[in-house]
């Protein structure tokens, strides 16, 4: 995707250069070399154009089309005005390249103008996608190199200082604030979840959290611009979505975080060297216990898992095959699964004796649950031969 985007940008630059003299061969140097002079020598003037463009978009978004139209009518710079009029009059689906071509806007008489044209083109393309003015300024200032990012950040911080913290508070009941709090110690997993969810879903999920939790998260994960954009996403979510929709987003976010946690634990187990894991060395026990979990009827398994402590389940999970591991986690209710994962994280590994004892607790629970269910109706416990064999193999161990 990166290469495709670079190729498209290169094609745009080719068009701008060719228009400069009408003769491609005269263009000679590639775009990136010809714009160096303008990038360094006239960076300040070009930065002013980028900031002004972002300012216009901010007017459009914050004050509406009428205020934007009035502001545009006073604009004197030809290319800037042309781009603003596209935004005023066109649909997002407009063919921007065609508009620029037919408007004679791809003609550039100097390297400075070529750079300005490319910058305005990309800014307009970004605005048509409804990007935030801060994002648009970052795209446009990128044409002036990485050095310009500092100026762009300063403009964003100054222009949106009133968005650097949330004025309103909306708190929805649920686990989300606790989940965020418990992940603030080491934010790596939370960061990945936010990135995987994308700014919109993350912003919506966080929109139902207390202000202090959001501030804490912002200070640990985001830059000043990042906090401003997050607060913007939160404000949009609060304005556009109902409490139920925000609760749905929170559930989706927490599910994603949970998936990350499981995936991390699986990866960690795979990466730790066997001698350091203190994994049980008795393959027969691992096989018997795994088979017992796979053979146990679903409702029965669920009832037992609900009753067992997270610590016992955590020991069992460490001594079974992946398929049985998946079955346990797909059977456990989410809240209990979370507690098991916490117990797993706290665990320093297990030996065969610990696994045997906990496997026996699990087996006894199966027997006790079955006899409880059938004590009034049958003289003999309705256990399949296979299940009986597995239970006996585990319970007879010393």
């Amino acid at each position: 995707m990166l290469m495709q985007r670079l190729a498209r940008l290169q094609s745009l630059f080719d068009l701008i250069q060719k228009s400069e003299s009408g003769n491609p061969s005269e263009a000679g140097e590639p775009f990136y070399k010809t714009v160096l002079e303008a990038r360094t020598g006239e960076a300040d003037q070009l930065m002013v154009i980028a900031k002004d463009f972002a300012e216009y978009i901010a007017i459009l978004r914050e004050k509406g089309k009428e205020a934007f139209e009035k502001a545009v009518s006073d604009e004197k710079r030809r290319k800037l005005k042309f781009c603003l009029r596209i935004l005023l009059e066109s649909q997002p689906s407009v063919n921007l390249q065609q508009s620029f071509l037919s408007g004679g806007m791809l003609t550039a008489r100097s390297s400075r103008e070529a750079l300005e044209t490319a910058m305005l083109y990309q800014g307009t393309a970004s605005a048509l996608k409804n990007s935030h003015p801060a994002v648009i300024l970052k795209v446009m200032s990128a044409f002036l190199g990485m050095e310009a990012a500092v100026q762009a950040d300063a403009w964003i911080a100054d222009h949106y200082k009133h968005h650097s913290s949330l004025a309103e508070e909306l708190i929805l009941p649920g686990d989300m604030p606790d989940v965020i709090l418990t992940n603030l110690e080491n934010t790596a997993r939370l960061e990945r979840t936010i990135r995987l969810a994308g700014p919109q879903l993350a912003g919506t999920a966080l929109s139902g959290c207390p202000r202090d939790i959001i501030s804490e998260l912002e200070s640990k994960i985001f830059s000043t611009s990042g906090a401003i954009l997050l607060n913007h996403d939160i404000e949009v979510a609060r304005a556009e979505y109902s409490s139920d929709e925000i609760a749905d987003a929170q559930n989706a976010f927490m599910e994603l975080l949970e998936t990350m946690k499981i995936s991390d634990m699986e990866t960690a187990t795979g990466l730790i060297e066997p001698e350091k894991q203190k994994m049980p060395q008795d393959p027969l026990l691992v096989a018997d216990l795994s088979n017992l979990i796979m053979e146990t009827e679903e409702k029965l398994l669920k009832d037992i898992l609900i009753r067992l402590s997270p610590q016992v389940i955590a020991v069992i999970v460490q001594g079974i095959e992946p398929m049985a591991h998946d079955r346990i986690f797909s059977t456990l209710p989410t809240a209990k699964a979370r507690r098991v994962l916490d117990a797993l994280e706290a665990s320093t590994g297990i030996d065969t004796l610990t696994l045997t004892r906990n496997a026996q607790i699990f087996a006894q629970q199966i027997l006790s649950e079955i006899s409880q269910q059938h004590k009034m109706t049958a003289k003999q416990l309705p256990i399949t031969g296979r299940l009986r064999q597995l239970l006996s193999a585990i319970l007879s161990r010393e």
Partner: protein
Amino acid sequence: MIYWNRDLAARLKCPEKEKQQLPIFIKKLMVYVEKIHEIGVPATIPNVERPLFPYFYQGLSLIMDNLSTEAIEEIMAVYLSVSQESGFQFLKQCIETEVVLSLASGDTPEFTFRKIVPYAGIDQADWLIQSAANMGTA
């Protein structure tokens, strides 16, 4: 449809001898990727050697700016387009950017690694994957 551009291809071209240095470069980047997976971007960024990995560093700043992957790609592509480098140095900048985009998408280190090894060419990629597998990284 794969969109391609002759000038871009020419700009990316570099001698095989230089390309042979890519595995070392990729491995260095992967150390940061693993660190980010473990402790996160804000805790890792102060340790990134900015002069050696300027695009990677800048990209991480954009991740902290809470931008979508698409926006980060848009910005990084502009940085690359006006970069004054070509050949091996430009190729390295593209790899740094690819790593940033992979991190921005929430990829695991293994997946990030798989995304960047093709830049090293088929022979080197094969060698890289083998050596990473021996070290337990891929």
